[in-house]
């Protein structure tokens, strides 16, 4: 695939940008403000939850202002133990786990998806089983994962893997099934080799479907890691929440939720962005 002619970005002008996007910026800000006000009122009435102001006051130092502080001197890259490190490190620990589990899910999901997409027999054979398995929530996999791996690290990765893989398998399979007959006819008349067929025709034609699956998968992967770390785990953002909850630090829990939401949002955008990069040369 050769590079297409460079797309030119329009000169960036803050004034015009705001004029054009004022609604898109102001509306969400107003909505957020209203939500915070409602939350504040709710917590001062019920006294059950810290309000937004209290959350910021309680977590300002060190949690908000230094996300990468290290409380424990023995801290090393493979020793993110005990939770006395900044939320940035916890997030990184979780992200590493997600990266491994999600990569495995992507590779295996795409391979399985291609195989069951090509073979109607295999599709029919495994479809009912997969349909049942895919509805199992991440937390329900936890005991099984711990039984298999005996260790929270690989178990967490397995949970991500098994949660994220289903949409990747199914969307890839649908992509293969939906491949236009024309492309297959070209391959047949040219008698393309299996390798050439796979890389030049099959794979490029299923890319949009694959990315739909990958995008759904990353969302599920992120949901799963938090669930897994909350019950068992010694590092990661999920562990942090559980730890903070046990020590009654609700403000820290809420701050971590914000982190989780923002990271999940960015992951989704990242995969979406990768998809546009790959399919823009269509």
């Amino acid at each position, binding site marked *: 695939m050769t590079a297409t002619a460079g797309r030119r970005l329009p000169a960036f002008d803050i004034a015009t940008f705001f004029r054009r996007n004022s609604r898109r910026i102001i509306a969400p800000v107003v909505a957020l403000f209203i939500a915070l006000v409602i939350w504040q009122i709710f917590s001062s009435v019920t006294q059950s939850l810290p309000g937004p102001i209290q959350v910021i006051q309680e977590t300002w130092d060190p949690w908000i202002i230094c996300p990468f502080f290290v409380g424990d001197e023995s801290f090393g890259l493979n020793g993110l133990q005990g939770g006395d490190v900044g939320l940035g490190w916890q997030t990184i620990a979780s992200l590493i786990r997600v990266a491994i589990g999600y990569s495995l899910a992507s590779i295996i999901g795409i391979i399985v998806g291609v195989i069951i997409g090509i073979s109607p027999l295999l599709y029919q054979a495994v479809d009912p089983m997969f349909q049942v398995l895919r509805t199992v929530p991440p937390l329900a996999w936890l005991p099984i994962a711990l039984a298999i791996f005996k260790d929270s690290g690989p178990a967490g990765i397995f949970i991500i893997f098994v949660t994220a893989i289903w949409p990747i398998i199914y969307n890839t399979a649908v992509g293969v099934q939906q491949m236009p007959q024309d492309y297959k*006819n*070209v391959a*047949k*008349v*040219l*008698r*393309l080799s299996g390798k050439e067929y796979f890389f*030049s025709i099959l794979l490029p034609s299923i890319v949009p479907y694959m990315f739909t699956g990958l995008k759904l998968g990353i969302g599920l992967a992120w949901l799963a890691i938090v669930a897994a770390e909350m019950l068992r785990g010694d590092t990661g953002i999920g562990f942090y929440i559980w730890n903070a909850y046990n020590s009654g630090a609700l403000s820290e829990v809420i701050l971590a939720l914000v982190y989780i939401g923002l990271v999940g949002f960015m992951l989704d955008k990242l995969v979406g962005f990768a998809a546009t990069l790959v399919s823009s040369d*269509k």
Partner: protein
Amino acid sequence: MQTLTSPKATSQTHQDSFLVIENVTKSYPTPNGPYVVLDGINLTVSEGEFVCVIGHSGCGKTTLLDTVSGFRKPTSGEVRVQGKRITRPGPDRMVVFQNYALLPWKTAFENVYIAVNAVYPEKSRQEKTEIVREHLAMVGLEEAMHKKPGQLSGGMKQRVSIARALSIYPQVLILDEPFGALDAITREELQEELLQIWSKHRVTVMMITHDIDEALFLADRIVMMTNGPHAKIGEIMEIPFPRPRNRTQIMEDPQYYTLRNHALDFLFSRYALAH
């Protein structure tokens, strides 16, 4: 079968039985018995001949040409090219598909290259590139060589498709309504290009069209099919115009209207669609 006699007498040599369609019948099973689309088609095409197939929509033209390309198997009978029975598609019988069938993620160059590379794996990259360039130049697409199909007009896409088909030097070129979706001017341009290329390549052509004028301009013979089901070859019309052909010249030929009216009569009186 009734044949319109023409000045050109045919002799039975090996060259004349280059492509043989013998007793081809095609039926599809349905709940109420088999649905017979083609019923006993016999046709012999000589090497380098240009044959157009016309007939009403749904009569089985595509089905017939698919038995030549190998995409469909006849229920009975067989198709042979140079005495070899056809069982599956292959690059010796290249197809120009009705909707171009280009790969949208590949440039015009790459779309042709994939064909050349598949058929001539032993050639060097440079040789293959040269073949691709030559054929894209032949259809006037040197400029647009590195554009993707999305950036090409319908006519340009069909040119790429023709370049791809010819770049692998097929023995038989099969075209299924190749110009149906194009505007009149582009269609005429492409017809002329196709004729030029055909006379250079000396490839045997079987082409489906709905346009009688197109068939008269291009073909050595026009095969007219009766309506389906149970479609047969109703008549074969020899087109005597000398080559190279010139559109205005043949349209001034008094025979042109005789042949045209004969074909129209076949399609719209004798085998008119009963509506």
